[in-house]
């Protein structure tokens, strides 16, 4: 099962993970990562822009690739767009596999690729001013781990 969603409104991770886990009893293991807007320094808000004709399609491709590569039974990806406040979830990835290694590695892989290989552009608001965030060298290093 592949479930990929792009949401413009706040979401509660448990409302997605609960049904996802319950839908696959006895499958082995489920690994989940939830990324939130950090309450850093003086960040007042974060905005993620995307390009509708490409972003969701790209995430669906990434999901297919992840399922195939790690032999998953199921994969859930939920990603926010729009303006978010500190503490709000940005991204949720949940992978179900027969063995824990596959589930954990799949989440790691999907997160690395969502961060540096998906069509999102991020800006932060500090002191009332919006600034674009440039990609970090770290993100490219993360993705290069997967060969």
């Amino acid at each position: 099962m592949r479930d990929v969603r792009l949401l413009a409104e706040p979401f509660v991770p448990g409302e997605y993970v609960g049904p996802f886990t319950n839908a696959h009893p006895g499958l082995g293991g489920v690994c989940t990562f939830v990324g939130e807007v950090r309450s850093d320094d003086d960040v007042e808000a974060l905005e993620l822009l995307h390009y509708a004709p490409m972003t969701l399609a790209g995430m669906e491709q990434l999901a297919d690739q992840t399922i195939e590569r790690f032999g998953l039974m199921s994969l859930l990806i939920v990603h926010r767009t729009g303006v978010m406040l500190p503490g709000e979830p940005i991204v949720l990835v949940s992978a179900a596999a027969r063995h824990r290694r596959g589930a954990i590695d799949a989440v790691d892989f999907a997160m690395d690729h969502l961060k540096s290989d998906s069509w999102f552009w991020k800006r932060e608001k500090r002191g009332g001013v919006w600034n674009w965030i440039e990609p970090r060298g770290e993100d490219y290093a993360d993705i290069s781990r997967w060969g």
Partner: protein
Amino acid sequence: MVRLVFLGKLADLAGVAEREIEAPLDWQGLVDELHGPLRETVMQDRTRIAVNGALLADKAALQARAGDEVALLPPVSGG
């Protein structure tokens, strides 16, 4: 007309998120239409181009016709 869509910080540099431009449009025609920091940024290797949602492997091969949507995509910084 061809519709140009400016993503991320390109929208700030362009001053608009979208703009219409005469068809047909090739890479040289696009570059001639842009100016200053916007042109420089679009010309950088890291800026990609998609036509109707399909990424071009080589943006210099751009060939857009009337009704096409041309997206200018700066480096992503997502998740």
